[in-house]
């Protein structure tokens, strides 16, 4: 087990290194993509561009620039190229908001997906199954920023049921915090409920035909126990993998659209603002940050599996 964890940890570090090189490359090595020209804007003079190039160290070799950038990422001294604010401070400022969004939405979509997936699997082929399947597919087919905008307009602006975007810290008022997050949680969850309930439905249908389920029935367990303790538990494994990955993605700024539409001012919205101001330093840091969460949670999921199921350690 210890060897497995060490091997996974080393692999994690290697992937993170590759990610940092790729992220650096996207912004530096793409032909025609001189960051100094980009920083200077569209109508800059050659002198301005040269000054910026010297100022930010873009005249050094690419490996030197990479090392400098990574050094700044790790000691937290990276400064935005446009607002000159500390990038790490900005991310830390947004993190509680993104975290609140991610945790609430992840619990909501997992719960709804298990209920829906199990229900449709047990009623496979019947009208309620077909109806809920189409509903799930509608959830998958809607752009989240559009759903969010419509929720804001109808539920927030027009009918005044929910607050029209914004975020209230938990410490300030737990109820207002919850109240402001209901719409973002729902909007973000719709897609995942659709995906997860579909995956769970097919897993449950597969597992129902397994021998151990027949054994469980044969030894006289009630149908309820068979479904909940044997079928559902074994069908959940692929969903949990997805859950780890998607939770990491949302936490790492993947909820750009939801955060922007509901004005949550989290990491995702910071990413969007950085795109609009072409803030390379901020984007490098956010992208690395997001990838870190995904890789980290993926590794944790792998290790948890290996602890639960010794067969996995071999591969």
């Amino acid at each position, binding site marked *: 087990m210890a060897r497995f964890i060490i091997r996974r940890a080393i692999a994690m570090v*290697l*992937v993170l290194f*590759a*990610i940092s090189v*790729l*992220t650096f490359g*996207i*912004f530096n090595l*793409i*032909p*025609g*993509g*001189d960051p100094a*020209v*980009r920083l200077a804007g569209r109508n800059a003079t050659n002198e301005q561009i040269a000054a910026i190039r010297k100022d930010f160290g873009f005249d050094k070799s690419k490996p030197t620039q990479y090392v400098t950038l990574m050094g700044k990422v790790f000691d937290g001294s990276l400064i935005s190229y446009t607002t000159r604010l500390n990038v790490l401070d900005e991310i830390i400022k947004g993190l509680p908001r993104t975290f609140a969004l991610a945790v609430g939405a992840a619990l909501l979509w997992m719960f709804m997906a298990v209920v829906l997936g199990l229900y449709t699997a047990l009623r496979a082929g019947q009208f309620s199954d*077909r109806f809920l*399947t*189409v509903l799930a*597919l*509608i959830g*998958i*087919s*809607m*752009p*989240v*920023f*559009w759903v969010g*905008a*419509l929720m*804001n*307009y109808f539920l927030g*602006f027009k009918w005044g049921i929910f607050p029209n975007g914004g975020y209230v810290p938990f410490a300030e008022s737990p109820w207002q915090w919850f109240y402001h997050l209901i719409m973002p949680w729902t909007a973000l969850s719709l*897609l995942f409920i659709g*995906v997860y309930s579909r*995956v769970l439905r*097919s897993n449950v249908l*597969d597992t129902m*035909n397994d021998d151990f389920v027949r054994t469980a029935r044969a030894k006289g367990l009630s149908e309820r126990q068979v479904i909940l303790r044997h079928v559902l538990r074994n069908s959940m494994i692929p969903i949990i993998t*997805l859950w780890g990955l*998607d939770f990491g*993605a949302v936490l*790492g*700024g*993947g909820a*750009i*659209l939801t955060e*922007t*539409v509901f004005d949550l001012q989290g990491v995702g919205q910071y*990413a*969007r603002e950085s*795109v*609009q101001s*072409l803030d390379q330093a901020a*984007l490098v840091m956010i*992208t690395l940050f*997001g*990838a870190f969460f*995904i*890789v980290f949670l*993926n590794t944790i999921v792998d290790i948890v599996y290996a602890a639960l199921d010794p067969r996995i350690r071999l591969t």
Partner: protein
Amino acid sequence: MAVDPRNASTELSTDALAELAHEEEFVHGTVVRAQGPWRIAARRLRRNKVALGFLGLFFVVVAICLAAPVWADNVAKRGPKDNNEVGTVTVDGKKKNVVSPDGVPIGPTWQGQYFLGADGNGRDTAVRLLYGGRNSLLIGISAALITALLSVVLGILSGFFGGVTDSVISRSMDVVWAFPVILLGVALGTALGVNGLKLGPITLAEDSKLIPVLIIGFVYVPYLARPIRGQVMALRQKEFVEAAEAQGAGPWRIMFSEVLPNLTSTIIVFLPLAVANAILLEAALSFVGAGVRAPETSWGTMIAEVIETITSAPHQTIVPGLMLVITVLGLNVFGDGVRDAFDPRAKIRVEH
């Protein structure tokens, strides 16, 4: 009963047809396949009226969008990029401002000109919706084809050769996979959107529509390349590959004529879902400002431009989104049916 598929008659009695129609109900036990898997899959798909209905819906949207110039030239009488901030339009015999003095655009007139109203620049929303749809569809379909091509090549090479080739390709996939799709797309779109792309003989202007196509095509590669790699690794152990090797066929020939045909059902299952997700990702990138660039339009850019004014002109946001949802839903329901028909256990999952 052993039936050699090659000698089996393609003409079946009605009894045999009825038996085939119930083929999927046999979970255990042997099934005599008198016909190839393709025909069975096609038959299952043909019986899924819901899936076909939604495919029809998708084709209706495509047809409407293809007819954009007809509408623009003959009915609306203006192009998608024609501003008209100070003009007027006659509605029910009365002249009305296209954009009112305080900047509120006209709502739907339900007549030829400004059928769905105007935007803040006085452009005809209906015309832009159709032209924007052409871009959204074009980008979605081309991106999905690029994803399929790249993933098939990488997946086959990786699964067939194994060893160093496999390690390099698989680890690269891991790295791409580790990025949140939207963040990677946004990062690439931002970097390429400023100065365009100059790569050897290829030069793309910063506002080229090919940039979002390439980005979206690229970020989804691991979603198909991984399952294909796994499938190729399994196929490589099969007797027919061994037989081809014994006959002296080289690796390229085996990959092309022995392995590739066995991947078709995976690719077919992937394509409609990939187009649906590519269209959604294009909309998301354009919404953030890292996709299609002005003056070109897509459904994503249309929503992005008007979302701030949703309280004064909600239809401006609702209509392009609705078109998007209808298109993507059509593809998703059809894709679901295709999966059920071809490969119900396909481990294909795409996310936007």
